[in-house]
């Protein structure tokens, strides 16, 4: 469904992606792990055109992602994104955040969008927070609203960019459990994360990225439990046993 073929991307003289080739099939959960600055987030940002790429191809169901082309709007309504820092609209309530895309981008009827929006908030456990503004919500609640906002677009896939990295440790679980339910329901997901437990249990496949290339990839349990490449082994040792 999502195909990347030899994708290169540089910021000035620094090449962050040095030929990424990967694919995500429908219903698959792929976790991208790797050290900071390895290009993980950049891959996600290229997939929905928040960032341009210099060469190679990214296609979503056969349509090439080009952030300067009009087709990018269609791409973005099909592939939603959840950000590390939530990026909810602070001047709108939780429910208004969720229905913003359906009403103003997809021109859905407001009453219908509201009905669906409330159901989505209930799905992420926030039925009673529909009228709260983001600053009144905890980080975990904000991120769950952000997930509901992504789901409201009825996307074919959702990209998660370190969705729990900005959260207090005790709030990580509530977000991960929402994501786990989504995965179980068959949503196609690409997740950049440092949560190895989540990757091991939920992901179908794991990609380990370092220095702008895919160093190792494979079924989640294989990569995380028996990493083959020394750099993967080293990274996992440091993540799992930081002391």
């Amino acid at each position, binding site marked *: 469904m999502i195909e990347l073929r030899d994708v290169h991307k540089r910021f000035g003289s620094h090449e962050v992606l040095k030929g990424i080739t990967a694919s995500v099939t429908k219903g698959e959960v792929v976790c991208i792990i790797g050290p900071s600055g390895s290009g993980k987030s950049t891959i996600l940002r290229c997939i929905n055109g928040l960032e341009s790429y210099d060469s190679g191809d990214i296609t979503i169901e056969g349509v090439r992602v080009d952030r300067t082309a009009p087709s990018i*709007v269609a791409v973005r309504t099909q592939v939603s994104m959840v950000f590390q820092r939530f990026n909810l609209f602070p001047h709108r309530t939780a429910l208004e955040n969720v229905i913003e895309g359906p009403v103003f981008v997809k021109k859905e009827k407001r009453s219908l969008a509201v009905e669906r929006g409330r159901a989505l908030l209930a799905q992420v456990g926030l039925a009673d927070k529909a009228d709260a503004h983001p600053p009144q919500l905890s980080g975990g609640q904000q991120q769950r609203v952000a997930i509901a*906002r992504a789901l409201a677009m009825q996307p074919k896939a959702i990209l998660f960019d370190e969705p729990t990295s900005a959260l207090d440790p005790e709030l990580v679980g509530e977000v991960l459990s929402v994501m786990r339910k989504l995965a179980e329901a068959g949503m196609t997901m690409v997740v950049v994360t440092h949560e190895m437990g989540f990757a091991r249990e939920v992901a179908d496949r794991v990609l380990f990225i370092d220095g702008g290339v895919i160093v190792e990839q494979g079924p989640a349990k294989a990569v995380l439990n028996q990493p083959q490449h020394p750099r993967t082994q080293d990274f996992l040792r440091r993540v799992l046993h930081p002391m």
Partner: protein
Amino acid sequence: MAKFASDAVEFLPILMHGVALTIIVTLGSLVLSTLLGLVWALMRVSGIAPLSWASAAIINLIRGIPIIVLLFYLYFVMPDLGVTMTALQAAIVGLGIAYSAYQAENFRAGIEAIDKGQIEAAQAIGMGWGLTMRRVILPQAVRIVLPPYGNVMIMMLKDSSQASTITVAELALQGKLIASSTFKNTSVFTLVALMYLTMSIPLILLVRHFEKRAGRK
């Protein structure tokens, strides 16, 4: 003091005519400067280089010309080019153009103060530039922009007196006319000053209200 009171009773009705024109000039140029300022600001942040450059050039051109010269130009030069305006029209257009530069810089600062993550979130749900501005950026920028906007309103109220130089009989010019015909300079100009102050006070309170609101999250 008693003399000032009797002068006040005598001159106030005439000065009130000036007040009416002062308010018309101020409000008219406020609306025009806001609209133009918004256009310059949106051109500036459009990400389209020629628009951005044009906006910067226009703003600097306007900023570099004194208001009084702009007014003279509109009222005395434009008729030679076939564009004739009444003094009142010229005053509103002149002050509106002059202040649009400051409005634009204020609006731009407000827009650029919004977290980039907001733009990305809007793009990620498929919003284009216009929708992102209208639904996400501008509503948040308003809070930031309002306190300085209130200050501009106060400055415009006072600078509307420059319209007197092109014969608009607003408060300052009415005062000058009365003073030069009665020689009661002290009474007249004290009155004029008090009347400007009286009009400024609600605006000053408004700015304070805006500042409190912007401070609240």
